[in-house]
């Protein structure tokens, strides 16, 4: 009796959550296949009556600068993810293996830096970028996204390096390797799953940002997917099939990345990263 009740509760909860999780995706897909007037039908149709790819996907790709936004998002998110993972791995190793004075303080600074809200930084940052001519450039955006991702990347990777036994790199040092080699040849291969997890995580953070792109780009050719979508809403017409088609496209890369690499992500997070 008790068991059945527990099962009932478990599966009931699961069913509700699955619906909750999936309905927005369903609505996104369904609307993206509708024509303009059908999207505005009262009451709405759940399945598109005459599914069309042109109204949503066709127009958003042909009419708007969406392909360019997509490319921009890809470049800056990948750039930021790679940069923060690389730099983060170094810092993670440094924090994990060396016990120097001020280490605790520096770790504190690293963690505390996550607490600075974007709105505080974005104004002065844009003036700074302007001074050095990086305003409205990939490099400026990548650097900005790194603020979002680096503290977390470094911290996660420190956790991963912690899981690699000290004896391994000490053995390498005794064998005549230097620190750099010990890091590159011994530790790095062992924390690859962690690096992948960090990479996805940083990519997701950067891909989803709106505030920084909104403030740090001036031309349309530098806009990202999130910015492009947020603009479509306030344009002279609100074309839901296009917007939803754009959304589907915007969700695609992080989702694919996640589905392929989710094993690493979960393993990475269980690998000590968030345990601190």
């Amino acid at each position, binding site marked *: 009796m008790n068991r059945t009740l527990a099962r009932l509760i478990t599966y009931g909860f*699961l069913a509700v*959550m699955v619906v909750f999780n999936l309905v927005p995706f369903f609505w996104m897909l369904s609307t993206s296949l509708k024509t303009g007037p059908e999207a505005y039908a009262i009451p709405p149709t759940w399945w598109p009556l005459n599914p069309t790819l042109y109204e949503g996907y066709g127009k958003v790709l042909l009419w708007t600068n969406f392909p360019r936004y997509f490319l921009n998002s890809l470049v800056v998110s990948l750039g930021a993810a790679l940069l923060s993972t690389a*730099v983060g791995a170094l*810092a993670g190793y440094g*924090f994990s293996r060396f016990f120097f004075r001020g280490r605790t303080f520096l770790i504190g600074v690293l963690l505390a830096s996550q607490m600075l809200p*974007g709105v505080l930084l974005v104004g002065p940052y844009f003036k700074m970028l302007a001074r050095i001519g990086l305003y409205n450039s990939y490099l400026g955006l990548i*650097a900005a996204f790194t603020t979002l991702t680096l503290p977390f990347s470094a911290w996660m990777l420190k956790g991963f390096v912690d899981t690699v036994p000290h004896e391994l790199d000490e053995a390498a040092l005794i064998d005549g390797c230097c*620190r750099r080699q010990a890091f590159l040849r011994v530790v790095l291969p062992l924390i690859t799953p962690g690096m992948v997890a960090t990479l996805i995580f940083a990519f997701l953070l950067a891909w989803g940002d709106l*505030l920084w792109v909104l403030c740090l780009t001036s031309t349309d050719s530098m806009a990202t997917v999130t910015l492009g979508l947020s603009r479509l809403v306030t344009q002279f017409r609100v074309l839901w099939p296009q917007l939803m088609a754009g959304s589907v496209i915007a969700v695609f890369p992080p989702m694919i990345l996640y589905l392929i690499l989710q094993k690493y992500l979960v393993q990475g997070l269980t690998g000590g990263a968030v345990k601190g």
Partner: protein
Amino acid sequence: MNAVPLTKSKGRGCLGRRGSPPSSLHRRHTRQGLAFILPCFVLLGLVLGFPMVVAFVNSFTPLWSRGLSGFTIDYYRRLLQDPIFLNSLVRTVYFVGATVALHLVLGLGMALVLNSAIRARRLFRIVALLPWTVPDVVAGLVWGWMYDPLSGILNDALLRLGVIASPIEWLATPSLVMPSVILADVWRGYPFVMLVLLAGLQAIPKEEYEAAKVDGANAFQEFFHVTLPHLGRMIAIATILDVIWQARRFGLIWVMTEGGPARSTEILSVLAYRQYFKFFNFEYASAMAVVLALILVVVGLPYVRAVARRA
């Protein structure tokens, strides 16, 4: 990986080679460690540190037009008397509190379910994590469209089920708009908490449960005496990270409501953005952002200290 640690002189070759004189060992150790973390802190200093200092100074003086003259705390004084700011502060606390609490509840529930013996666990785990891959701007768009009073799926479903008699204006009813925005955010945000807690659950030794069973504990006792104590730290970490992220949330609210209607969803990040980039009140906006940053740092400090000490 071409990001090799930056040691200043290449000529000296590898640091920390075997057989160096022990007297300088400690200093070299420090230097090596610093060399590894240097790139990270140079980047942070440039991208975070410098703008932070500038913003801080800017909140006291119109930096860009008059240099450092005209230092004043007027902007902070004005903040304390500005009902728009104070209301926004309260609203931010509400938004952050509610979203974090719901992330935790749903995250914990889902983690427990996924950690139990259910069918197709792998599939459900993927489904559970899917929303987390959606950028918050897209989440705002999609939920905004689901909430559409006339053509949205939510009202239609409720009407068909007979739960409501006439369409509800989710984003245009003062008492409903904040909960609606919160729900959209919960959808996107809870999977991360779930992931962290799931990791925590899987790390609990099986023997503890067996021991509890031997002692005749029921499911609830098991949960409170074994699961929760073990999960405590993970919950603390997930909570603090989530608080920080939620307090900085911008894109979701920006595309859903832009802080409206009638400021009912205008959290601090939105208000400061508007003051800075729409009305160009740089100093006032900076003061707001500094207050937000201070609150976050104060809230987060115990966590930072605890974690940094242990690390």
